[in-house]
């Protein structure tokens, strides 16, 4: 049974190379990329052997735990059942234990295991403390590797047995939340790598050692630093984790073999993407449509693509001699300003498809709010996380409130103004399906007016917040941080609410004229 399953696995893998040049090429490139990346990381890790133990421990335990979390989260992103899905053996009468072993071993044969092997070598080499510790490191690596593969196996099978697409979407959202939670960890790791060395407290590492994700990896470090009790605890946690995972896997296999596969109830149901996640109201529908378009329509996508490159604008200034610590604060407000600017001609982007809103008599409020959804979905987390990253780089977390205040003020005042201007002053835009770089036939004076009002208005409305924030962050008046935060938040929300209200009224009154405008352009 086990041998048969392993042969099947090998044959399946070989077939990827046998049929067609393209899949073979893709497979080879993917494997090469994964292996080379692993070798690079492994080499970097093994260079740590001369560094203090605390630093090594922080890096390998933190990074390794992150990797293990990835092994849980990643399978949920795939919509195809994994190779080891036990439901595939339903009806063959396979014995549970042997099927569980065979499927687990078969699933382990693959690129992830190869990468883990390479990384494991680097992990073992990072402890340059003699053969005793090295053997413990090998034990830790083996335990962690087995945990990783079992985690992926269980997660993949659970993901495949959740037939409801909606449930899967929620799990994906959960994955994003987990991702956000580990950002501090990543920040910690980056700081270790930054010149100047390790400055973290080690609390995160110590905490992670108690979790299934970090226990096995922390074992050699604890032993080397003489914490025998912690080392034994690590071993126990790691073994219990493995035992529980194996039990879970065996249960899944047993269920898969005994129970007939559930009929594909949702087989003919076509997913609605963003619409599935939003309420079935007019505003929800417009928001879903906007989000779909921001992802799918090249015109919106190109506007979004420039966002991540905006921080590069500060590099020339830095080379010119401006203080890097001050420059670190600049990109996030700039990105928020641009993001607030993006929806200012949204109605014109619809072109004549706007007739659907007009004939359905969509309320101005629903139309305005829905169109702001993508900018808010991207902008608010950007302002939060970006401001945090900026103040970390600025090396003074205390000014977070000021940085966030400026960012949110620029974003929300921009969106408030955009709500008015997209209804009051649309100008000819690139038509749907056209090349996003193509210029529209005629833009007229409206384009200039609209754009200057947007940028000028947002900058002017955020100016008070900006002044407070500059005093707080640059001139060191830390007592003004709170004021800047509140000024930014209140101006932003106030202008947004007023803008949406005015925009709704303008849109409701002018909807047919907006359609007539689209017909002309």
């Amino acid at each position, binding site marked *: 049974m086990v041998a048969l399953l392993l042969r099947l696995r090998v044959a399946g893998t070989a077939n990827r190379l046998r049929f067609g040049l393209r899949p073979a090429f893709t497979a080879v490139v993917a494997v090469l990329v994964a292996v080379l990346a692993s070798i690079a990381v492994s080499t970097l890790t093994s260079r740590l052997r001369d560094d203090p133990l605390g630093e090594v421990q922080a890096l390998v335990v933190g990074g390794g735990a992150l990797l293990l979390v990835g092994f849980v989260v990643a399978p949920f992103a795939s919509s195809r059942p994994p190779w080891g899905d036990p439901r595939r053996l339903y009806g063959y009468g396979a014995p549970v234990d042997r099927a569980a072993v065979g499927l687990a071993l078969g699933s382990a044969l693959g690129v992830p295991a190869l990468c883990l092997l390479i990384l494991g070598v680097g992990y073992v080499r990072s402890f340059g403390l003699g053969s005793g510790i090295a053997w413990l490191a090998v034990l830790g690596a083996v335990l962690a590797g087995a945990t990783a593969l079992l985690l992926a196996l269980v997660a993949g099978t659970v993901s495949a047995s959740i037939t409801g697409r909606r449930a899967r979407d929620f799990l994906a959202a959960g994955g994003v939340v987990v991702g956000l939670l580990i950002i501090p960890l990543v920040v910690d790791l980056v700081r270790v790598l930054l010149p100047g060395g390790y400055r973290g407290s080690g609390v995160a590492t110590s905490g992670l050692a108690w979790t299934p994700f970090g226990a096995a990896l922390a074992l050699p470090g604890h032993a080397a630093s003489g914490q025998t009790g912690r080392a034994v605890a690590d071993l126990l946690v790691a073994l219990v984790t493995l035992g529980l995972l194996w039990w879970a896997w065996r249960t899944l296999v047993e269920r898969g073999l005994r129970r007939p596969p559930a009929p594909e109830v949702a087989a003919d149901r076509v*997913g*609605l*993407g963003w619409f599935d996640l939003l309420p*079935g109201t007019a505003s929800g529908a417009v928001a879903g449509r906007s989000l779909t*378009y921001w992802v799918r329509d090249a015109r919106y996508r190109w506007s979004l693509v420039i966002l991540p490159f905006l921080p590069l604008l500060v590099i020339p200034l830095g080379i010119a001699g401006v203080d890097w610590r001050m420059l670190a604060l600049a990109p996030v407000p700039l990105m928020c300003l641009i993001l607030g600017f993006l929806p200012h001609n949204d109605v014109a982007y619809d072109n004549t498809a706007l007739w659907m809103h007009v004939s359905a*008599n969509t309320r101005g409020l629903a139309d305005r709010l829905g169109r702001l959804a993508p900018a808010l979905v991207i902008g608010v987390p950007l302002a939060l996380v970006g401001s945090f990253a900026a103040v970390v780089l600025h090396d003074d977390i205390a000014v977070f409130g000021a940085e966030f205040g400026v960012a949110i003020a620029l974003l929300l005042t921009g969106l408030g103004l955009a709500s008015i201007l997209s209804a009051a002053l649309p100008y000819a835009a690139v038509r749907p399906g056209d090349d996003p770089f193509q210029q529209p036939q005629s833009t007229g004076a409206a384009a200039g007016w609209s754009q200057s009002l947007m940028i000028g208005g947002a900058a002017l409305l955020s100016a008070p917040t900006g002044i407070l924030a500059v005093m707080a962050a640059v001139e060191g008046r830390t007592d003004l941080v709170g004021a800047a935060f509140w000024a930014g938040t209140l101006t932003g929300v106030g202008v947004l609410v007023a803008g949406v209200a005015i925009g709704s009224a303008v849109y409701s009154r002018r909807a*047919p004229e907006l359609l007539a405008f689209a017909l002309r352009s």
Partner: protein
Amino acid sequence: MTEADDGDDTVIDAPEAEGKAEAAANRGTPARKTTPRTQTPRTPARKPAAPAARKTAATATRKPAPRKPPATGRKKAPVVVPEPPKAPEGPVVLAIRGLGKRYGSTVAVENLDLEVRAGTFYGIVGPNGAGKTTTLSIATGLLRPDSGTVEILGSDVWSSKDSRQAKRSLGVLPDRLRLFDRLTGAQFLYYAGTLRGLDGATARKRSADLAEAFGLQDALGRLVSDYSVGMTKKVALAAAIIHSPRVLVLDEPFESVDPVSAATVTEILQRYVRGGGTVLLSSHSMDLVERICDSVAVIVDGHVLAQGTVHDVRAGRSLQERFVELAGGQAATEGMEWLHSFSD
């Protein structure tokens, strides 16, 4: 106003039963036989409605009757001239009065009057540039008129107070306007439904029903921008009726639709009209209008030259001949003698 209110509510409530009945009717069984069955649950559903709606139901049940006698009568006694179908007597659901619209110095529509009664299949025909699309766009609230009024079930489409009510009763298929075509078919129908105030579950269910009825099931997962012209028309038509409106205004609904789909769509629309709905459509195809419409209006240069039942308008000739006569097309075929002396 209140009458219209009540009537509208029954439309919003009834569709569950309607949807099922329609789905049943579409599942292979011959449509003719199931038609009476689909009507029976409908009529009682409309009973408690306002008097206006009751009259609609009355015309609906009476409607098929005048069609049969000519067919049977012709066989038995060929001497007897078949009785012309009576003009529909339902309440006026769509009234256009004194409509005027000009684009710069060009007059598109001038002082145009049109009345469509409940339960009619009304066709607007006219040569290119006659003002059909302008008229229908104004009637559906998409294009602001210079003068005149449009009332749907007594509510003015162009008054800020009544327009919500009026537009709720309208299903619209415009010609040559874009759709939100970066959505998949399923997303597009869901979008149309929820914009029209349906809740998510209803919008999903009706999308599935409509996809089945229009033969779009396999295309639901594809982007509308990848559809052929005919399929785009079908999905737009499906979106127009997803909220079960009282009045359907369709601009060139059959243009570039293949014959099989056109037959399906015609069947759906005829069933809708028999159930008390009203269809106002424009078309270039005289043959089609003559075949499926009860009443017709001929619009030329922004004026209505003739309107009434198809029988009255064609006055003993084919609609095609009558139309060419009204539109004055004969004159243009003279001249151009050079075309008959070939160049080689």
